[in-house]
């Protein structure tokens, strides 16, 4: 579900980034003081690293021959509480993005919303907490894990669809794309839920104190208000980017030049240059786009060759 940069427009990425940054800022304020008092800082760090390591261990999915791994949003929320889990999961997403190219840097805000917020701030307080209660009975934890994971991942899938459609990247109709994404993520959500339940049941057996309910605070109403505000921001302010009208930068060019494209010249100099170009061009019969592409490729090869010959080694070590 990690959204790559190529699938979002700068407007949608920026909008999601603003909402995610606001949530992280609220989160940081909420956790201020609590982290030092309860030893949450090292716990969050170690559990973030744990989720990262656990994602590398795949379990086999019966009857399919394939394997899957845990995402960890609901599990982190069950262990740390929703706000601490959001920061931890967001940190894991940053590590995955920067070190393993899993999810884009610009799309980080989208990924924090899709995978972090949907699981920890929505599915956990609204689904897991009411169903699991005080985590005293195993069947309740199993039901809560499965339901919360399905809800979290389905919400994330809906968000991915909305963000991609708003960005105007895919030609697939919204309904078909939504059906495809939610269908696939229903299965993934069930797998995630079962895996989360299995781990939480193990924890209940060997370290029941880790699932103590007093850790799991988090107001669902304030979260929903933030989330709805973000959704309106994304949907309302940035929808124009996906429209047929010029995008932000084209609009700016349009304002400056009076049109969305810079018109070709018709003066004597331009005509003379065009004639020279026609004579000197390596590929005169190809249309301009082809010539542009081939020209770019030649430039890239030249740049690569020249930079390979230059040594940028410095004597001073970095600070």
């Amino acid at each position, binding site marked *: 579900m990690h959204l790559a940069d190529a699938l979002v427009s700068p407007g949608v990425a920026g909008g999601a980034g603003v909402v995610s940054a606001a949530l992280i800022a609220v989160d940081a304020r909420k956790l201020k003081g609590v982290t030092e008092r309860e030893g949450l800082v090292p716990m969050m760090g170690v559990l973030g690293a744990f989720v990262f390591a656990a994602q590398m261990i795949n379990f086999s999915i019966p009857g399919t021959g394939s394997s899957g791994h845990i995402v960890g949003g609901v599990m982190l929320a069950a262990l740390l509480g929703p706000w601490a889990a959001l920061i931890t999961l967001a940190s894991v997403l940053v590590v995955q993005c920067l070190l393993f190219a899993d999810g884009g840097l610009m799309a980080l805000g989208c990924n924090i919303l899709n995978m972090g917020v949907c699981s920890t701030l929505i599915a956990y307080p609204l689904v897991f907490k009411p169903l699991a209660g005080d985590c005293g009975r195993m069947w309740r934890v199993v039901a809560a894990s499965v339901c919360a994971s399905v809800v979290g991942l389905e919400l994330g899938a809906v968000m991915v669809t909305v963000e991609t459609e708003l960005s105007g990247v895919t030609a697939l109709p919204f309904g078909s794309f939504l059906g495809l994404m939610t269908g696939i993520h229903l299965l993934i959500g069930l797998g995630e839920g079962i895996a989360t339940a299995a781990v939480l049941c193990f924890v209940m057996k060997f370290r029941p104190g880790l699932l103590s309910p007093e850790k799991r605070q988090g107001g669902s109403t304030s979260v929903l208000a933030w989330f709805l505000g973000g959704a309106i921001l994304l949907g309302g302010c940035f929808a124009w980017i996906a429209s047929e009208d010029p995008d932000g930068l084209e609009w700016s060019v349009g304002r400056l030049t009076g049109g969305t494209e810079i018109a070709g010249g018709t003066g004597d100099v331009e005509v003379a240059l065009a004639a020279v170009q026609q004579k000197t061009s390596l590929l005169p019969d190809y249309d301009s786009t082809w010539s542009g592409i081939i020209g770019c490729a030649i430039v890239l090869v030249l740049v*690569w060759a020249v930079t390979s010959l230059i040594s940028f080694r410095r004597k001073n070590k970095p600070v």
Partner: protein
Amino acid sequence: MTTIEKALIRLHEVDAQSRGDFLLQTLDARAKVIVTIAYIAVVLSFSLTSFSGILLFAVFPIVSASMSGISYGQVFLRSMIALPFIAFVGIFNPIFEREPMLVAGDLTISRGWVEFLSIMLRGVLTVQAALLLIASTGFQRVCRALGCLGVPQIFTTQLMLIYRYIYVLINEAIRMDRARRSRSYGRRHYDLSMWATFVGQLLVRSVGRAERIHRAMLARGFDGHVRILGHLRWSSTDTAYCILWIGLFIAGRFFDLSSVLKFL
């Protein structure tokens, strides 16, 4: 080699690359973060039917790779990792957008295929920019740069702690996985119950470790803030680096440089 062992090698690789003594490694991390974000934003701002305009932006990762002493081929291969999900979303464009767009002799390419190639190209270039940022800077310095650029301290502290403990926990998971594989007669994957025991055990050990770490941190006067020696230093080279690249990005975005190349 298992996925988890490959991940550990990748972490060591990034650490080694970021400690190089090439020009890009010596620049301030903030300059590199700003330029990388500007690059990605400009590449994404092109219309879907642009291809040659975006292709020219490959100059940035090629030059950055050279400036940091990293093989561009290696970066290129690594950036392929991101393509499957992008291809999954983009492959519907050739199906729905069939109007011809490029004609060269008998070959006609539809609008959908141009859009698909453009999406894939954006995917590769933006991933390369992010990979080069981290390879030339290192994770810790990127975190410090993010902190200087206004990211809340608790978030940057988390990033640093996670990065620190990833090594520890991945090593622990590798040891556990190796012990399990040596007793499992070639079975690659875990069935769910065994996986739950494995991951649950790792979790319980991790929590125990976190508690010990917290006590050790408290004993050394920890007050919620991780203090780091050394400061990021912004020099005139960093200013020049930012102005040069951002100027080139703006020029590449607002003027069709690929049409100028027709004179070749």
